[in-house]
Structure formats: structure tokens, C-alpha cells
């Protein structure tokens, strides 16, 4: 291998928090990298999340995206191509050669990076796949009536409503809000036998934001189990349980009532109960990345038993963030640091070998 053949020591596919974090960590280690983002702007999912702080920071991690974007923009070792897609990838003599092709980008997208101008081919020592996971489409659970009954929204739609201020005093003020957990998760029958890890947390944080903005609003949390998020979370749970109505039952369906959506669930006696709400929020989970199949084909990255990208792939291929399995933002950022370390070691070894 000739080091002069390398166009960029590390190529990172996906510009969400994981991809950006990998690039920043590589640059801290003194290595340059190129980030390829499909969309017109980097940021991934985190860009869609609102701040959940009420009296204090809720540790949702959403604002860390801002830090990462600023740091990535400030570090000259990082090249960021937006609106670019990988069309082919090939490994030879330990080096990857990856072809990129431009995608239509909207008019001047915000954020750092520039749209890829024309097709190009990059040779690199290591590839980090940080393409994120795919959010479950609630249409896949038609009994929860998303898109069919007004007032039923996915959690991502609620994020947007909260961020825009669409819910709160002087805006929409629902009297009763229900969250339905594990929509598209913990669902062996639906082929999704994993816990998505983040949705208990994000739903409860949003529930608290709603309660804070609208103290009169009653929030019900339909769940099976509440997952863990560190010691502070454990301490906060009891007070959340006083503030929010916790119902341990997986609802059977959401129907259209005269006043709005109705949630049908097993009541305390076991028999079905139908209760009306103004808003029903479906806490959708995280699944394997969109197009994982083609990534498998392009890079030979093996899927794990659930279809996420396995962390162990061919030499010089690394996976970071939610692409490797459900992860929170903070976890994705840290996880990407490890991928960066491995990629750096790999590139170091390649250069060493080339030197003889």
C-alpha cells in the first residue's frame, strides 16, 4: 500500500451525532476525515429534538449537536460533504475506494459543510458507518390509528410541536394526553424483539415538559416497563410518578371518538376500558438503518440478529451510533469515540506497514 494513495485517512458515512463525533474525535487524535451526509444538512435525528429542560436540564443530549456542529466546523481536518450518497465501495490491499455521487440539495442548507459538487471517488484507510437507525413508522401498527384519527401523533411529531411552541399556554392546550410506549419495539410478533432503549426516557421527558407548560393537563403513560438512564433518572422517577399517571398496560387500539382519539386498554379489573384523550402520542422505536441491505452489499457489513449493522465487519470497517443498535445521543457520541479510536489504530497500522 502506498500512503500517497489515500485521499482521506478515514471516511465517515452519516453526519448525525455519531458521525460528527467520530470526525471530531479523529481530529483530536490528529487525523483528518471526510464526512458524507445524505441530506442537505448534517445533524441527523438530534436536529429534530427540542430541549426538555424544565426546572433543570433533562439530560436529553439534544443540545450536544450544537457543540459538535460548531467543533466540526472549526476543525480544518474535517471535510464535510452534504447531499452525497455512496454508490459503490471496494476494498483492495487494505484500502477502501468509495464512490460518491451528489444528491439534489435544497437551496442553501444551513450548517457547516458544502453539498458535494460532482461524482468523486475517495480512497481511504478506514470507513465508519454512522448512518443511524430508522424510526419506526407508526403506520406499521395500524391499530393505533396514526394518520387515521386526528390527534394521534408519533413522538417525533410531538418533538416538532413542542419545539415550535405549538403546545402550551396561548397555543394548543390539550386537557388529556396519552403516551403509548413500545410502539414498534419489544414486539417479537412484529419481528422487532428489542427494546429501543431511548423511548421511555424521551416520552417521560416530553410528558414533563407538557405538564410544566400546562399544569392543568393530565398526562397518562401507558407502558409495560420503565427503562433506566443512570442514577439521576432513578431519583427522578418517583416524582414523575406523582406528576404523571402511570398505567401498566399495552393498549389494544386507538379509536375515533366524538371528542378525539380514544385509547382502549385493559382496565384495573382486566376488562377493556375505552378512554378519551385530546392527544395520543405513539412512542416509536428505533430499528435497523434504512437501506441496511444496500450497506451490507456495498461494504460487506454483516447484519446482527436484529438487522442492525454488526460492529465487527471486514477489516477497516467500523460502525458507530444507532446504526449498530438503539442508542441515546450521549451513548452514540461516546460509541463513535470508540469507533474513531479503532479507525485511528487501523490507519496507524496501515501507515506503519507502508513505511516498512
Amino acid at each position, binding site marked *: 500500500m502506498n500512503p500517497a494513495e489515500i485521499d482521506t485517512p478515514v471516511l465517515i458515512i452519516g453526519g448525525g451525532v455519531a458521525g460528527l463525533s467520530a470526525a471530531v474525535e479523529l481530529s483530536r487524535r490528529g487525523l483528518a476525515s471526510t464526512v458524507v451526509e445524505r441530506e442537505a444538512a448534517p445533524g441527523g435525528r438530534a436536529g429534530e429534538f427540542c430541549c426538555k429542560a424544565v426546572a433543570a436540564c433533562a439530560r436529553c443530549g439534544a443540545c450536544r449537536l450544537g457543540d459538535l456542529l460548531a467543533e466540526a466546523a472549526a476543525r480544518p481536518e474535517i471535510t464535510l460533504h452534504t447531499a452525497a450518497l455512496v454508490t459503490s465501495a471496494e476494498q483492495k490491499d487494505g484500502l477502501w475506494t468509495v464512490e460518491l455521487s451528489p444528491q439534489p440539495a435544497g437551496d442553501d442548507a444551513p450548517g457547516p459543510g458544502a453539498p458535494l459538487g460532482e461524482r468523486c471517488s475517495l480512497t481511504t484507510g478506514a470507513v465508519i458507518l454512522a448512518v443511524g437507525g430508522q424510526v419506526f413508522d407508526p403506520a406499521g401498527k395500524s391499530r393505533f390509528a396514526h394518520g387515521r384519527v386526528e390527534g394521534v401523533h408519533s413522538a417525533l411529531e410531538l418533538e416538532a410541536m413542542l419545539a415550535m411552541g405549538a403546545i402550551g399556554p396561548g397555543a394548543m392546550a390539550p386537557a388529556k394526553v396519552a403516551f403509548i410506549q413500545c410502539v414498534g419495539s419489544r414486539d417479537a*410478533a*412484529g419481528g422487532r424483539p428489542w427494546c429501543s432503549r431511548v423511548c421511555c426516557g424521551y416520552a417521560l421527558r416530553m410528558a414533563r415538559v407538557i405538564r410544566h407548560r400546562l399544569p392543568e393537563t393530565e398526562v397518562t403513560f401507558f407502558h409495560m416497563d420503565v427503562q433506566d438512564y443512570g442514577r439521576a433518572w432513578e431519583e427522578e422517577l418517583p416524582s414523575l410518578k406523582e406528576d404523571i399517571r402511570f398505567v*401498566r398496560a*399495552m393498549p389494544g387500539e386507538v379509536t375515533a371518538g366524538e371528542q378525539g382519539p380514544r385509547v382502549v*386498554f385493559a382496565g384495573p*379489573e*382486566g*376488562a*377493556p376500558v375505552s378512554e378519551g384523550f385530546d392527544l395520543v402520542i405513539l412512542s416509536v422505536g428505533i430499528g435497523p438503518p434504512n437501506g441496511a441491505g444496500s450497506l451490507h452489499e456495498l461494504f460487506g457489513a454483516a447484519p446482527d440478529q436484529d438487522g442492525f449493522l454488526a460492529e465487527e465487519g471486514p477489516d477497516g470497517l467500523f460502525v458507530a451510533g444507532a446504526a449498530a443498535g438503539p442508542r441515546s445521543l450521549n451513548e452514540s457520541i461516546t460509541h463513535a469515540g470508540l469507533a474513531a479510536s479503532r479507525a485511528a489504530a487501523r490507519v496507524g497500522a496501515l501507515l506503519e506497514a507502508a513505511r516498512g
Partner: protein
Amino acid sequence: MRLNDCDPGFKHQVAAEPGGEGIRVCFGCAACSARCPVGANRPEYDPRRIIRAALLGRREEVLASPLIWLCSSCYTCGEVCPQGVRFTDVLTAIKNIAARAGHAPPSARITAELLAKQGRLLEVTEFENDKRAELGLPPVEQRPHDFQSILGLEPPPEGGEGEGA
């Protein structure tokens, strides 16, 4: 109730019956209970509770319970179950065990007897076949023997009554 007095083998027995395989993976989420049309009318009928009692090994109580015969076999519960339990089939397995243990209620006995005797629940008479002829349809025969051989019942003695299942 003392768990030590229950029968841990019961759930394995149910699981070994055709249709009963799914019983053990239930995690009690209550989605089935939320949708069961029988439960909506008879609050004491709760699929999840029946599974729970069976899982805990309360064999006699489950087998003798009149509730297990209320299922309308609409399969709604199985439709919504995130664990793929197919409660309807699980209950069929339980009912088979119950019937073998002599717990079948009279209504079930009668149903079974009719089936064994007629091959179907409704008795086909001249009336039905006349109506069918008017519509240009072929007559339906009373063919209990197919059914009896599927069920492995002794062929009834000539002119005699079919044995209940």
C-alpha cells in the same frame, strides 16, 4: 396461594399440545385483554388472567374454570399480541386438556356429540336441500364418517348414536 403447591409442569403440558406452544412467552402486557370482545361483556373473562393462572401452574382451577369455554375464537387477541402468543389456540389446547380430564361443560359436550353424529353442527334436512335445489345448488349430505375418522372415533354401530368427543 402457595406456589410450591402448584404444578410447574402444567404450562409445559399446554405448550406440548398443538396450538399451545406460545403460552410460556406471554409477558402479561394486557393488549389481548384490551381487545377481547368477550371480556367487554363479561368482565371476569380476561385472557391475560387465564394465561397467568395457567403459567403459575394452577392446573385444577384453570381446567375446571367455566371461563375457558367462553372464548368466541375471534382471534383478535392473537392479532394484537406482541409476543405472538395466539391465545385462541392456547385456549384450545387448554380446553382439550380440560375435556380429556372430564371438564367439558354440557354445551361443549353437546356440540361435540352433534359434530360426531352429523359431521357439522346443523342437522341437514329436506328443508335445506329443497332450498338448495331451488337455488340450483347440489344437495348436502350428512357425512359423519369423515369427521369420525379424522377424530379417530369408533365408527358408530349401525343405526346407533355417535359417541361424544
